[in-house]
């Protein structure tokens, strides 16, 4: 067995989570997995109720809420109503109030680098997933290039898990796999190459990749192999 990917470790842990305490641990565990200082998952549900699982110092969190820093926080303002990933360097950190906020955040242990991913959930639900670290611009650029696709998936997986915990069910009605996706997973599970599987299904290899990518996301899987394994263990496919 080779070394398990970070993503595989994360999703393995995620599938074990059944309550919000474990969810908090899941978010905390990302730190050692990705070797960065902080992770924040923050959501506002359709009723306007906030929820957060994060690794910032609790005194800083209380102070942030107390001072209502969400009104001026460039991360919140820059991500609200958006759906593209945002590097904190792209944000507007000018202005007296914002500079003072940044200074306080830094004193509280918030790093100088950040990457935030806005998530649009169902019925107006909104969430923000942030990774934060203290390092040079060059180190950060390297980290981002290597990990952003993982983080995009993790952001959405965390949001689905939080919604699932809130609803008290693990059945996501829109996450059904179509017969075509099951065929694709079955063929790969039987050991076919992507090219063979695509040929068998009379689709292009790019199309197969899109079908597999969709199936991977719906199953909450780390990668294609894991998607096949999950579909098998849940009885979706038999190989």
């Amino acid at each position: 067995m080779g070394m398990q990917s970070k993503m595989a470790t994360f999703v393995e842990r995620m599938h074990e989570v059944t309550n919000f305490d474990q969810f908090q641990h899941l978010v905390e565990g990302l730190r050692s997995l990705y070797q960065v200082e902080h992770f924040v998952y923050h959501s506002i549900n359709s009723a306007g109720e906030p929820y957060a699982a994060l690794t910032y110092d609790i005194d800083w969190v209380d102070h942030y809420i107390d001072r209502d820093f969400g009104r001026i926080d460039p991360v919140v303002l820059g991500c609200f109503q958006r759906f593209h990933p945002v590097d904190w360097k792209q944000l507007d950190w000018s202005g007296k109030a914002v500079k003072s906020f940044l200074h306080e955040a830094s004193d509280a242990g918030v790093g100088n680098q950040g990457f935030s991913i806005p998530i649009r959930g169902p019925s107006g639900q909104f969430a923000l997933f942030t990774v934060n670290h203290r390092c040079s611009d060059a180190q950060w650029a390297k980290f981002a290039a290597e990990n952003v696709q993982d983080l995009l998936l993790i952001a959405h997986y965390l949001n689905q898990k939080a919604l699932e915990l809130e609803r008290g069910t693990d059945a996501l009605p829109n996450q059904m796999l179509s017969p075509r996706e099951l065929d694709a997973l079955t063929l790969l599970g039987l050991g076919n190459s992507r090219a063979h599987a695509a040929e068998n299904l009379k689709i292009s290899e790019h199309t197969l990749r899109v079908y597999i990518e969709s199936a991977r996301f719906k199953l909450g899987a780390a990668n294609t192999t894991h998607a096949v394994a999950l579909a098998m263990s849940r009885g979706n496919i038999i190989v």
Partner: protein
Amino acid sequence: MIQYLYADQLAQYPDLRKSMFRDRAAQFSGRLNWDVTLNSEGFETDEYDALNPLYVIWQQPDGTHGGSMRFLPTTGRVMVNDHFLHLTDGVTITSPLIWECTRFCLAPNLPPTTPISALLMLAAAELGRRFHLAHAVGVFDSHMVRVYKSIGWEPDILGQSESGRSAISVGIWEFASAPLATIRAKAQVSPQIAQKWFDQAFQSPDIRRKAG
């Protein structure tokens, strides 16, 4: 220039907004005879325009619309999953790494001197690269296949509805394999300019001032 604008930013560009939705009416209702809705101002808009999508727009020197397309993440509501499952073998396409691209539109009667389609394709490639996306899934008028082919970045076609004037195709593009040099040559734009348009859209005014 290329503008990347969310719907809630369009109000800052009233001429661009008006001309874009009117050009969409001319293309989708007029030329293509699609079953689309026009409002009292003669704008073609649909329910997806109400989801605050991201528009990629070629803005002409006079400030009006030259061409555009519309992006939404497939993790939310998108046309391909709501209306075109019969063209995707019944597969609901959903992933944070896949965005949907719809309403590829060109202003009517433009002089052929500006390669607007290629500029839009280049802007889409830049968007995919900078946002770390894997694929785009598009819903487009089937005649566009020829245009995409001439630019050198053809989608893989998942399915096509009937034939004739109003035929609709669903296709996918993989960002990692975009032939950037070919598209740039067709668009007659350097990589630096394409990057600058993107940076102008997604960096704060403060940072742009510092960068000069």
